[in-house]
């Protein structure tokens, strides 16, 4: 798929390029309060991904036409810093960041109690500092923590993870090579306390069995990441 011939992403013992087994998540660490002027903020480091999310509001929604009389709207802006990848990214909104902003807003709106703040908006800014595959998942996860840190009432936090397929083997939490040269990618947004889904995308093809396997990997990974999110919010080592 990548066009560079056959990149061997996983060896015969099931060891991956970064030394993980196929069901292992990259190391995740989260901290809150990294943007002191924001109402809430969080930074997630997930493998080589580095992502900061800041939340402002609720505030009056501008322009007027985006206001909803019965609820608040989430104004999500996902952006990759120009220096976040080896190829420089042209600054500004593009097709991809627009799409990710939209799916992120929809995923988060299903947990935030928006009806408490009619006519207002909650501004969520997600900035990718360093990208290594799965930035939309890192963005959604960081945004959930930032919303919680801002004290915005929400029924649960969204944990987002992507699993996929490389050389016909299903692997958990794709890294850069696996994302580039692999065959499929399945990002999911999971509510860890109930196991509900609020976000699901698929890129590539998976057989029903492989889909189930990727699904299970995502569910397991979500638990690990949720632990770290809760630890970050509670500020201690429990």
């Amino acid at each position, binding site marked *: 798929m990548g066009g560079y011939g056959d990149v061997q992403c996983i060896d015969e013992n099931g060891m991956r390029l970064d030394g993980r087994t196929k069901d292992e998540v990259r190391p995740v660490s989260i901290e809150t309060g990294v943007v002191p002027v924001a109402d809430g903020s969080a930074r997630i480091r997930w493998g080589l991904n580095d992502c900061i999310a800041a939340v402002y509001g609720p505030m009056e929604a501008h322009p007027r036409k985006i206001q909803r009389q019965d609820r608040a709207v989430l104004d999500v802006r996902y952006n990759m810093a120009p220096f976040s990848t080896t190829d420089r990214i042209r600054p500004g909104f593009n097709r991809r960041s627009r799409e990710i902003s939209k799916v992120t807003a929809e995923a988060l709106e299903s947990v935030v109690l928006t009806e408490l703040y009619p006519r207002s908006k909650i501004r969520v800014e997600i900035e990718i500092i360093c990208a290594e595959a799965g930035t939309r998942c890192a963005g959604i996860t960081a945004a959930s923590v930032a919303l919680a840190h801002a004290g915005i009432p929400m029924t649960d936090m969204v944990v987002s993870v992507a699993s996929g397929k490389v050389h016909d083997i299903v692997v958990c939490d794709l890294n850069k090579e696996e994302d580039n040269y692999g065959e499929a990618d399945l990002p999911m947004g999971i509510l860890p306390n109930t196991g509900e889904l609020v976000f699901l995308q698929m890129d590539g093809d998976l057989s029903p069995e492989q889909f189930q396997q990727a699904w299970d990997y995502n569910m397991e990974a979500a638990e690990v990441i949720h632990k770290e999110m809760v630890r970050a*919010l509670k500020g201690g080592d429990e």
Partner: protein
Amino acid sequence: MKGGSVARLDNMSGDNGADGPRRSRQAPLLVAPGDDLGDSGEYEAGHGVLAINGRLRALKQGRMNNRGGTVSIEPRRTAYVPRPSDLVVGYIEGCTSNIWFVDIGGPFNAILPMSLGPSKAEFGGIRKVLDIGDAILCRVQEVEENHSSVVTMKGMGLRAIRSGSVEEIDPHLLGRLIGRGGNNLRQLKEDTECRVVAGDNGRVWLDGDLAGIINARDRLNALLTEAKIDDFGGDV
């Protein structure tokens, strides 16, 4: 917050009676949004808690309290939402010929009509009465269903703030600032010889001589630090 050998009041005396007041003495239980807090049949859902499918779920990050059969969360951070009769400190953000727009820290600017303002102005002279950037002490008159609110300056003690300093704290910390029966606030006023007006939106007007204001401000900052330490279990 690791159980066992922590030196807490209830751990130090050898006799831990089975039904002693242990529950209330435990270190604060911190929760994150989505945490399960128990069966909704057993307890009432208070602030920051919602009953979903027979279970109580946390909506906010903060400390869980369980008093009188009601489970509630004292949040770590809150946004101010205006309610009628709240005393607030606002800043004038803009005006038309007969209305001021006031930032009271909520999601929306409140309006202050000329009829509820401090004095009548001639046509075109509204900024001579209250100019953009002025701080005012006002009261929320009404909050409409769509959350837009009207404030008034008709009432005892309501005025434009022309001296002193305005500090901001999170609204949920006002309870600590005021204390039981207003004790802490009275003490603060006596110690610093300052006029201290705590608005419900978390803005606190301090007025007095410079040394007093600085002293009062330091005390407020100490309160904020203290609240932060309490939130994180008291060991940091």
